[in-house]
């Protein structure tokens, strides 16, 4: 099972509160290692809340825990996760002369980790 989806890293309240405790603490590492996925996509791919999936692209790969979001909240084919070390593994360093690497909306292959 491998499928290409669009990853949207961003801020979340839990990420914001946990980083105050410390970026090396378990809570922050846990919050930034979770990815939200459309529930219909999860069902189609045989995934359940708490399953581990590997996200990968030409830049790198990371293993995260998936949780379902209603189809009305997160479109099919889109993933959301809080910014953090795991999402950085997938970020290309090319800034196209702007200083800004593309940090949202990049394609990743997803694969269930068994």
């Amino acid at each position, binding site marked *: 099972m491998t499928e290409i989806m669009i990853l949207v890293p961003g801020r979340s309240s839990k990420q914001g509160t946990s980083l105050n405790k410390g970026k090396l603490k378990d809570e922050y590492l846990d919050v930034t290692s979770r990815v939200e996925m459309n529930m219909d996509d999860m069902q189609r791919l045989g995934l359940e809340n708490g399953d581990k999936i590997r996200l990968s692209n030409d830049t790198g790969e990371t293993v995260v825990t998936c949780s379902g979001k209603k189809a009305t909240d997160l479109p099919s084919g889109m993933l959301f996760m809080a910014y953090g070390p795991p999402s950085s593994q997938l970020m290309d360093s090319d*800034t196209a002369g702007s200083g800004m690497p593309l*940090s949202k*909306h990049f394609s990743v292959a997803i694969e269930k980790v068994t």
Partner: protein
Amino acid sequence: MSETAKENIKIVKHATCTFCGCVCDDMELTVDMDAHKITKAKNACVLGRAWFAEHVIEDRPAAMVDGKEVSIEEAVEEAAQTLVKARFPITYGLSDTTCEAQRQAVAITDIIHGTVDTTTSVCHGPSGLAFQGVGESTMTLGEVKNRADFIIYWGGNPAEAHPRHFTRYSVTPKGMFTPNGKKDRTVVLVDVRKTSTAPVADIVIRVKPGKDFELLWALRALVKGKKVADNIEAITGVSMDTLTDLVERMKNCRYGVFFFGMGLTMTRGRHFNSGALLALATDLNEFTHFVAKPVRGHGNVTGADNVVSWQTGYPFGVNFNLGYPRFNPGEFTTVDTLSRGDADAALIIASDPASNFPKAAIEHLHKIPVITLDTKETHTSKLAHVAFTTATYGINTGGTVYRMDDVPITLRPAFDSPFPTDEEILTAIRKRAHELMLAKSGLGAAGGGGTQKVAAPRKE
């Protein structure tokens, strides 16, 4: 300062939260002076409460070299020597410290002929480029509170990133010309997904990922009375009816505001996206009053833009190799200088690029001597050659920060820290680096090593 002392409890009124760019200055802090801890932060949001509760006195050395505890003076000497020896030293971070510390960091970079950049380059740097290309129809948040009746959040989720933005400035507060608060305002949200900001909005528009520019350009055309291609919905995911309704509302409001986030700057198009939105705001001033403002993340990232601008003439990505400032994003911005392997030493202040930069940049950080100033241990401080633990701005130190609308606010600290401030450490590094550079150029003596005095750690 409104402070009252009662036994070991201190109340600090009108304190400022420096967690995010809202910089709310109506905090009432209850401080346990024995435990050196803020036990209550009245008026704070969920992020502010965590900010105040979790910034306690850390149990770690004030200064370390290669993981071993040293005196602050020894660490300052090592930091200055490292920076002066480097051929392409970079200074980065700065968005979570005071303006007073930021100006010292710029001065150091000037002295060592280095490159100074801030977290703006990976945040609203593209908006900074767009300001230069398009201009900015701007305002203060006080104006928004008192006058704005039409608010558009585009590519941002303030419900999670700036929770008090709605209640202090943009949605619910009752202002001079908005006496009924929320009832006097229409709120629109444009985003690729339904975020927790959606319940606040009267109109939610979902744009296809990577199609913000196309949507903004279509709106510009409609505002100017031009025809838009029939397949605009297929391209952007937004129907023509929705677009024409939005245009009518924008043209007919009394005072409209765009608040835009990193959904525009971090995606394909970058500064073109921000520029399209700023141009749309300008276009709308043919019909009504319309303004635009980036919603800024870190507590003093706006101050970093201001300080670097007033000291060098440019907002970020500034290089002093030739002895005068040059601005070139893509060449002198930190992701680029690290990923290409240009930088051979890094001074990182109040930032954690080893956590959130692209992989190639993080790998290069592991190869070069890094100097960090931070309040807590981070991924970057763990790999640092020289690591300083510093006091937390706004909690342990005074100083100045800029709110996201470029309004400067003075900080009221709650309790002392045994650690030095960023400003104290950077001032000491600046003085020692200056001596070393003079000696290097034959204009002065280097002096004995480790002689820069830093204010002694405070006794509790």
